[in-house]
């Protein structure tokens, strides 16, 4: 379809690999956001290294004030900045290049990006200068410097502007392509963007009064109101990630093996369930808090009767079955798993995709449900199990998916060859296995009662002392090993990205493509009857069995505790 604006052709280049028409103005904005994401990730990873070596008390490297400072830094750079900057890049690039359409307003895109960067600078600066030792959650009445809250507000406003540009881009595409449906990848991004609007609005509702309170204009912030509304930002921001990384899974399934969702209606339905049901999840941060009633807790924390968990389980079938069906069409039809064995495991984006799905589902997903159930929350709340869960969900799931897709972004978005491509195939394994070990050992340490966010679990200087079960020493060692492996994997990836983007050889065309893009599989010979993806079906049955057993075990442990009502 022709560009509607006179002279608009000069905004575009045509990608020599994909054939997409890429709006160069959007591309620049996407690039800057992607670079900010990687810078934030680097800060988060260095902080993670220091934190691992502090919590593992064999080393205990950071002094107490710096431990909480670095923890604040790590939380915000890892869970907020790295991921949201990456998503902003995806929204801008996804809503233009993938739709062959133009950027609605580069000016608003730049404004949003610059506001977000200023916010990022303020937050990182106030934390590092010791003016915001309040951790990521900054629970009132703990108080940080006003510039910290201002930074968060600016970042949120900047992000919101880019989300608005995303919607405007979709509208242009809609006008130019009446009657067409969005590609699934962009559809998923749209779900993420809708969730982002609700999330960022919650952030504004709580950070603006808190900012005024830190300036002394408002005299009081109710701690329960703060915690309730803050989690309207805190958890749903991770749900943006889920919607975004599931979209990336579909994208990677297509790029690596030519896999297409076997039923797009089902996949889209699951994204709609996310939009409807996922944002109430913030309630599960208040399960063992005063004031809110069990009815409120049970309804909300179940994501409205687990409709969002249901949605994730739909994707858990839809993505691997897309891979399986594509592989079977290529002739890998022997037994249940030949398709999997014959998959392109040497492609880092493929191994990263598989590890991301496994870690997200088996570690992040299952533990998340246990943490989020009203009663079992009693035995995990604020223990190390909680970060154990989101290491699985956000780091093993989202971060690994984003790292994997970056191997395509370097040639296609940044137009550079991937530096040290030979090591790429090890990176997802190093990072994924490291994170898996880290997450599982943290979850187990939490089950022994070890608190999260705690500098010294020998309680030096306290009136009493307590010694945790000595078995925990073993899991601390595992925690350290897992953490170091993951940090190493992340650093190699960061070096690859930085060297490629800033010092890399230019990508001149398809002949320079190092990472393969799969040919679509041959069309099926006849209409398929019976099971489309028996191997995937077996895998999801394994998953649901592990899921039910883990929930039952936790309720068993809970029933052995003191009685409480």
């Amino acid at each position: 379809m022709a560009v509607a604006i006179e002279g608009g052709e000069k905004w575009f280049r045509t990608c020599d690999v994909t054939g997409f028409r890429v709006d160069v103005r959007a591309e620049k904005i996407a690039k800057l956001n992607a670079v900010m994401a990687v810078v934030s990730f680097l800060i988060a990873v260095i902080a993670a290294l220091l934190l691992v070596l502090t919590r593992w008390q064999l080393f205990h490297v950071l002094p107490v004030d710096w431990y909480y400072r670095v923890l604040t830094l790590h939380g915000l750079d890892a869970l907020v900045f790295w991921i949201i900057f990456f998503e902003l890049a995806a929204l801008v690039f996804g809503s233009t290049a993938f739709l062959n359409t133009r950027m609605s307003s580069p000016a608003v895109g730049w404004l949003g990006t610059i506001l977000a960067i200023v916010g990022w600078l303020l937050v990182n600066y106030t934390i590092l200068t010791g003016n915001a030792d309040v951790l990521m959650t900054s629970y009132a009445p703990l108080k940080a410097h006003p510039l910290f809250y201002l930074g968060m507000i600016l970042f949120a406003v900047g992000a919101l502007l880019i989300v608005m540009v995303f919607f405007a881009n979709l509208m242009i595409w809609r006008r130019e392509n009446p009657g067409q449906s969005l590609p699934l990848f962009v559809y998923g991004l749209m779900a993420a963007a809708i969730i982002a609007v609700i999330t960022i609005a919650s952030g504004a509702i709580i950070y603006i009064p808190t900012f005024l309170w830190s300036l002394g204009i408002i005299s009081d912030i109710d701690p329960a109101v703060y915690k309730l509304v803050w989690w309207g930002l805190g958890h749903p921001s991770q749900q943006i990630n889920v919607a975004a990384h599931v979209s990336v899974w579909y994208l990677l399934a297509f790029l690596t093996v030519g896999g297409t969702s076997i039923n797009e209606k089902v996949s889209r339905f699951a994204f709609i369930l996310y939009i409807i049901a996922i944002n109430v999840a913030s309630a599960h941060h208040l399960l063992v808090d005063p004031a809110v009633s069990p009815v409120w807790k049970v309804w909300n924390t179940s994501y409205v009767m687990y409709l969002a968990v249901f949605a994730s389980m739909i994707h858990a079938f839809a993505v691997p079955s897309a891979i399986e069906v594509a592989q079977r069409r290529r002739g890998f039809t022997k037994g249940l798993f030949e398709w999997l064995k014959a998959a392109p495991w040497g492609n880092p984006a493929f191994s990263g995709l598989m590890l991301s799905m496994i870690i997200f589902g088996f570690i992040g997903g299952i533990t998340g449900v246990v943490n989020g159930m009203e009663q079992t929350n009693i035995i995990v709340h604020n223990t190390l199990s909680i970060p154990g869960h989101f290491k699985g969900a956000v780091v093993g799931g989202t971060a690994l998916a984003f790292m994997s897709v970056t191997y395509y972004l370097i040639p296609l978005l940044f137009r550079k060859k991937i530096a040290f491509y030979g090591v790429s195939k090890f990176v997802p394994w190093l990072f994924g296995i490291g994170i898996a070990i880290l997450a599982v050992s943290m979850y187990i340490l939490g089950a022994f009662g070890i608190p999260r966010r705690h500098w010294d679990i020998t309680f030096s200087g306290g009136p009493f002392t307590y010694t945790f079960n000595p078995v925990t020493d073993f899991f601390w060692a595992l925690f350290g090993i897992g953490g170091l492996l993951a940090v190493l994997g992340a650093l190699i990836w960061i070096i690859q990205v930085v060297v490629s983007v800033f010092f890399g050889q230019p990508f001149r065309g398809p002949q320079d493509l190092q990472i393969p893009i799969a040919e679509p599989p041959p069309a099926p010979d006849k209409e398929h009857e019976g099971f489309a993806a028996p191997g995937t079906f077996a895998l999801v049955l394994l998953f649901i069995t592990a899921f039910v057993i883990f929930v039952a075990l936790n309720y068993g442990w809970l029933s052995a505790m003191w009685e409480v009502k």
Partner: protein
Amino acid sequence: MAILPPSEGWFQQKVAKDEKIWMGLAFVVSVFLFFWMIIWHVYAKQNPSFTTYRTTPEEFYALTEAFINKYKVGEENGVPVVKPPPGSDVFLLARQFRWEPVVILKKGEEYRFHISSLDVLHGFSLQPVNMNFMVYPKYDYVLTFRPTSAGEYAIVCNEFCGIGHHMMIGKIIVEE
């Protein structure tokens, strides 16, 4: 194809048998988990309370002082030790960076704990039984405990409350 608009007729395409079975199973598990929490409320003995009173740091401090004076039996490392009778109200005060008082309980008896903070948020983490609850200023959270095992228990603070967070540890003693 994730990067191209879906093919013609995608909305009418039948859902494959295995995907259909999986969706049914996943839905049943999801709904079961939801009802499980309600069932546990009715039949089981570990459910988080939601009984809460509004209070102020001043009021809660005064209530705790009165409680300590009434039942004090000694002192340990500068922290008062109290032994309230079974079935009574127990006041546990959290502040940067200590728990007061040390409470002696009797196994198998019920106690109505009132827990609140004088300053910021704290976390009540009872070890080694590993039961965890939030402690707020201005909210008196009422939790009715029945200790089912005897011995010495630590109360670890597990919500970040400031630089001395790691020193914040209290104690509950349960006698046979």
